[in-house]
């Protein structure tokens, strides 16, 4: 059997695609090129009921990858921001987003690095993170798993709420907080540890648990069994290529490394 070659980006897309498998008929959102390919692939492979948009304000029958033109798809519904908010407050959405920082509680930050009044780096602002985090399921995507992203203590400015009782009225985490998975360039993680502690679920081929832990600013839960993140199948790679004919996925990670380090991609560092 010849070994199938695939990129790390493609491995991460397939890992991300697992997120919405069992969600049924809800709005699936993937922000950023790879999560968007993930949600699109999920719709094609596992959950055809998933409702996905063109990133502007139309639901399309066929999922649109990054850079996909609305005109090339069949529009099946309208999704202005007002309706997005109404829908997400009702809980019928699962978003995968790419924060700048995450901490051991699953709290994330996209607003500022440093002091809020006079930040070292001002970024986007909290956007929809606070509302999303207490109303519907959320997953996260990181292209660079390191201690600057997976921070010790708490994130500099908590934009999305997590499993930190101290931050809620009466110390009670809101029932709507539902953090699902974290896909990174090293591993897939979830919140399945004690008190929703972050746990490693699978390691990307050739990555060790210690490497993931060393690049994380807090202690990770290590389960007894740690499988490899499943490699993409030929069918999955073909679908990804169709969703991303311009190859935007190859420009997200530096030097577009191979998905299995043991395949000895020259560019892997």
């Amino acid at each position, binding site marked *: 059997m010849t070994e199938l070659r695939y990129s790390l980006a493609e491995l991460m897309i397939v890992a991300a695609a697992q997120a919405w498998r069992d969600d049924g008929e809800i709005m699936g959102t993937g922000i950023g090129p790879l999560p968007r390919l993930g949600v699109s692939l999920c719709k094609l492979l596992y959950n055809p009921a998933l409702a996905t948009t063109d990133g*502007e304000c139309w639901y399309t029958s066929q999922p649109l990858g990054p850079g996909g033109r609305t005109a090339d798809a069949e529009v099946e519904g309208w999704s*202005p921001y007002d309706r997005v908010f109404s829908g997400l407050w009702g809980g019928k959405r699962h978003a995968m987003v790419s924060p700048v920082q995450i901490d051991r509680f699953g709290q994330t930050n996209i607003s500022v690095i440093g002091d809020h009044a006079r930040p070292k780096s001002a970024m986007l*602002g*909290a956007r929809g993170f606070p509302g999303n985090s207490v109303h519907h399921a959320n997953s996260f995507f990181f292209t660079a798993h390191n201690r600057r992203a997976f921070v010790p203590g708490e994130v500099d400015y908590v934009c999305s*709420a*997590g499993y930190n009782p101290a931050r809620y*009225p009466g110390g009670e985490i809101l029932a709507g907080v539902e953090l699902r998975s974290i896909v990174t360039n090293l591993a897939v993680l979830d919140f399945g540890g004690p008190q929703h502690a972050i746990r490693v679920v699978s390691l990307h081929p050739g990555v060790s648990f210690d490497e993931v832990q060393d690049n994380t600013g807090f202690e990770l839960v290590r389960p007894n069994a740690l499988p490899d993140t499943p490699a993409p199948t030929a069918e999955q790679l073909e679908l990804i290529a169709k969703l991303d004919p311009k190859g935007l996925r190859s420009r997200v990670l530096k030097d577009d490394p191979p998905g299995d380090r043991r395949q000895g991609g020259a560019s892997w560092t």
Partner: protein
Amino acid sequence: MTLAMLDKRMTLDDIVAELRDGMTIGIGGWATRRKPMALVRAIARSGLKDLTVVSYGGPDVGLLAASGKIRKLVFAFVSLDQYPLEPHFRAARQSGALEVLELDEGLLHWGLRAAAMRLPFLPTRIGLGTDLANQAELSRRVVSPFDDGETLLAMPALKLDVALMHVHRSDLRGNVLTLSPDPFFDELFARAAARTFVTAERIVTTAELEMTVNSRFNLVERALITGVAEAPFGAHPTSAAPDYQLDLAHLKTYVDSAASPEAWTEYRARFVDVAPGEYLAAIGGADAPAALPKPVY
């Protein structure tokens, strides 16, 4: 009111003359879409100062921040979409020049809705568990009077002195149409404001609005509109689809203008400190924005 008084036509400068230092001004649109940029540039040219700006922010916020007009910003984000980080907003934030109330997109909506309903606040779970809730203005809680007894965040009403927005068509009485696919929250901005001024791509006759066909695009009733100024390409460089799309090349020029004080001075001289007709010439004439391709999101 006489019928003659229902002629609400004004110039951009007439609208600016209605604004005062220290006012709270809401700006319609969303990031790079349907921002009243001709009006924003007119404010940048004016002597106005110490404004509180409420916006789903794009270059409107960046341009006013770079022009030193904003004392306080009420926002959930400031972004140029394809250029996610707004460089002038960043510079102003990082210099500590802006007082801010940071909101969630839905909280901003909720604050406008409370003002529109003339309520002091609306309850919500949004912000709980986050650092937003530690800001003084979001520090009040309200307990459900029902059996659930849930503790909720009280989002205070965001009352606006003035709302500014760009529409596609208006008649002289302020019957407006926004023809773009997403109306965003402009209706709530108008309802939250004591007065609303709009710029319109074209002022047309009431019959030309074809209101029975276009009713879904009729943002608000005319009683909410105080004045209307005709401003062709008045949203440029943001989009006013379907009339014209986002000008990505100009956005790049705008982003580059944050590179140095000299670059900003040059941008201002070319694109801000000019009359609307000269602006259109500076961006390549009326045919240029009309020919822009549809961007992907």
